């Protein structure tokens, strides 16, 4: 029983990391209609920036905050100078552009900081706390909490502020939004910036556990994409729930299903996807899109 609870809590924590990246992907998709395969790569770059800053003696929390600002700027710049050209065109080409960006970012990180694993200081102590006779790690609880708080802030931004309203308007219909005087280009930059900043939070939280390498979030990207498919691109809540389900299920499967084990647990979300695809092609929470020809 103790192991089970520990596994569930750890699963929620990794699930939160997937959820953050998945939400970033949804954010970009809602704004520009494309899937950013470089979302994880950008988060890794942010984690490297935080790591480099701590090596220069900057306190960890400040370093992470600075890396989040860096990510926001990076996201906005990438949107303005790289993606804008491809946004109105063929979505396949835009996807290939993000894949090129992923290669480039991975290459930059590998070139600047080598492909060796670097240890990233943890924001939380590695101790465990006992609660009702079960011990759970503080890091898992802390990771989950931080990401839930960040998501709540984002939700508040989108629902409660004028900026959020404008961002939603651009996501729903960029043309009408620009007719009503919204600076669509700048709002798209903000959307990409927010997505990248969200990714940076996830990167900083998961880096101590995975150790920092340029390909650190490749697997997390796959999980996040699985969560996006399961939750449905139109449903941020669904995506977060799906990410948690994936995080918990893969942890349980790794321990309780002998064939899967730790090395093959990455297959779990895709087995789940195959089952869901047969039953609900629009995702667990998504709506069926109807398109007029």
């Amino acid at each position: 029983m103790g192991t089970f609870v520990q596994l569930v809590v750890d699963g929620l924590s990794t699930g939160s990391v997937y959820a953050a990246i998945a939400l970033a992907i949804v954010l970009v998709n809602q704004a520009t209609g494309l899937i950013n395969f470089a979302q994880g790569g950008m988060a890794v770059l942010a984690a490297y920036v935080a790591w480099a800053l701590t090596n220069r003696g900057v306190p960890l929390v400040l370093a992470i905050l600075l890396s989040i600002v860096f990510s926001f700027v990076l996201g906005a710049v990438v949107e303005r100078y790289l993606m804008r050209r491809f946004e109105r065109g063929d979505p396949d080409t835009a996807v290939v552009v993000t894949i090129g960006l992923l290669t480039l970012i991975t290459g930059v990180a590998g070139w600047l900081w080598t492909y060796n694993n670097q240890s990233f200081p943890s924001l939380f102590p590695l101790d465990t706390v006992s609660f009702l006779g079960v011990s759970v790690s503080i890091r898992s609880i802390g990771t989950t909490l931080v990401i839930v708080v960040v998501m709540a802030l984002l939700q508040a931004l989108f629902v409660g502020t004028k900026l959020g309203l404008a961002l939603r308007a651009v996501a729903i219909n960029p043309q009408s939004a620009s007719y009503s005087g919204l600076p669509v280009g700048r709002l798209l930059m903000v959307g990409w910036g927010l997505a990248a900043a969200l990714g940076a939070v996830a990167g900083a939280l998961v880096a101590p556990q995975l150790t920092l390498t340029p390909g650190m979030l490749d697997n997390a990207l796959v999980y996040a994409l699985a969560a996006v498919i399961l939750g449905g691109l139109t449903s941020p809540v669904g995506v977060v729930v799906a990410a948690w389900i994936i995080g918990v299920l893969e942890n349980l499967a790794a321990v309780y299903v002998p064939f899967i084990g730790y090395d093959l647990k990455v297959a779990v979300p895709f087995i789940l996807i195959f089952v869901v695809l047969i039953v609900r092609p629009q995702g667990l929470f998504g709506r069926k899109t109807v398109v007029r020809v």
Partner: protein
Amino acid sequence: MASASAVQATPSPSAASPAPSFTERPWVRRAGALLLLVVLVVAPLVLPQFANETLARVGVFAVAVLGLNVVMGYTGQVSLGQIFFLGLGAYVTAYGVQHDWNVVVVFLLACVVPAVAGLVVALAAARLGGLAIAMVTIALPIVGVPLAKRLGDVTGGSQGISARMGGAPEGSGLYNDQWTLYVVLVIGGIVFLLTRSLVRGKFGRAFAIVKGNEHVASSMGISPYRYKVLAFTIASLIGGVSGFLYMYVIQYTSPETMSFGHSIQLLAAMVIGGAGSIVGSILGGAYYVLVPQLTNEIDASLTALLQGAILLAVLFVLPGGLASLLRAVTRGRRRSGAGNGAAAPSTTPPSTAGSAPAAGEPETERHGHA
């Protein structure tokens, strides 16, 4: 890219244009194909061993890129999993060779097993519209590597598996590298010819419509789902063939063969070579093999950075890839030569010149060589 493939799919109305330019005359094209065939037959005999080995590897990956082109370039479905089918084909081949199965049986299995795997994946993945196929197929290399490591009894685990198929037969007077290159040229050539016919025929037109607009396709009675599954299955089958050739040429495979990084490189090679182009597939294969060697020469730690930069630069400057550059060059020449050539759009993609070694009658092959 879409328009280019659509144009290719239509039968070339060269008879309709008033004065066929030099490169469009039938005898010129036949002679060109014959010349290419002669070059392909003679080249392995005169080239040094290193060049033959490199060319054989280019051939292997040209076939792999061709498979990716079927699903992505022609049908417009982004697939990040093509390398998985190459790996699967290679493992099937290695397993068969180690158990001394007949080489024909091994080849057929190396085609069928990846094709069936691709069919199963496509049946589920194609249910999702748009970019979701990319999001699902990215899992193939990510799951494939640990799976290959896990099934160590069959795959040799992380150590990999090596298997050697027969070298040059006795009495042929060929060196092994020459024989290997011939095998790659023959099998690869057949795959290229078959694929060229496929994408220029009825299926190719259906693929182009699915790529262009799925709703239009279904209103014309072409099921996007079915054609996506078909394209993906064919791509997997071609991937399996490239896996067989990979094993024939390199004689060793490990889980690393189908890593995520290689999968991305293969996709980059296809885009840089030219999506939806037969010649582009060959150029893509050459890019996949040669450019990493080149960038490693410059600075190994810069390889990924340079490759990403090259891919982005090509997307910005030359969205149709290197093949479109070739096409533009030949079109420009035709325009200046034929005077009124501007009236005739690119009815004849120059891809035919490079990709159709057997377009001439096969009987002339011996004459050409003698």
